[in-house]
């Protein structure tokens, strides 16, 4: 995992196209969330969405190509967390992914990641090419962090 840059808000990391690489990013993000006293259920949701975005980028975007990397930018702010995951693949149309909760697709072995990202984050927005996803999760009140 290579640190690419850090600015006032975003930490930026670059990882190889291996599924196990996601753990390094997760650990770094979770550590930062814990440091800022985000509650456990919030950590769970952000970790899940990050895992789904990273596995999509590594497996479907970069197609596990060892010559390609995935870039992750995240910002942990007092009221929200922002995640941006970018791969070097051709991109895809998220609207073309079928709803996995319908009877026709319930037995599909894959295709549930975007549904989970949308369910657990407040915003999930793809760029027009479909190789970058930006996600935001807000916290409703600062007091709720103290409860966690």
């Amino acid at each position, binding site marked *: 995992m290579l640190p690419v840059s850090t600015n006032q808000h975003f930490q930026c990391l670059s990882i190889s196209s*291996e*599924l*196990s690489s*996601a*753990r390094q990013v*997760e650990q770094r993000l979770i550590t930062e969330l814990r440091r800022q006293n985000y509650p456990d*259920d919030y950590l*769970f949701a952000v*970790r*899940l969405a990050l*895992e*789904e975005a*990273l*596995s999509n980028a*590594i*497996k479907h975007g970069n197609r596990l190509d060892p010559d390609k990397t995935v870039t992750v930018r995240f910002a942990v702010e007092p009221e929200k967390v922002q995640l941006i995951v970018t791969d070097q693949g051709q991109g895809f149309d998220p609207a073309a992914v079928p709803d*996995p*909760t*319908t009877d026709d697709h*319930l*037995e*599909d*072995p*894959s*295709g*549930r*990641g975007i*549904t*989970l990202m949308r*369910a*657990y984050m407040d915003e999930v927005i793809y760029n027009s090419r479909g190789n970058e996803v930006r996600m935001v999760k807000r916290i409703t009140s600062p007091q709720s962090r103290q409860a966690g």
Partner: protein
Amino acid sequence: MELSVDKRPHLVVITIVGSVDSADSNPLLDFFNELIDAGHTRLVVDLTRMDFIVSMGLGVFVRTYTRLREAGGFLRLAGPQPLILQIIKTTGLDRLLAIYDSLDQALE
């Protein structure tokens, strides 16, 4: 992810402890497939100590369920924690997979 197996007279109990992330999913699928290949088609998975799972892990349960159904067996998921059950319900898989509140209930 830690896995353990308890082979009983009429079924096999598999216990999953910890997180099932994307990198764990293929080894987990291999683990289930090896059991099925060895003739074990009645599987109960104890989820009471599993604290995280991603969509690829859920896909492993779906693949295993499908294979066991075709083999005339079953897959039962026992005792998922509330956050895990929420993920399962979000994906609609509570309508497909047999989920029990506890391991005891799954063994009845």
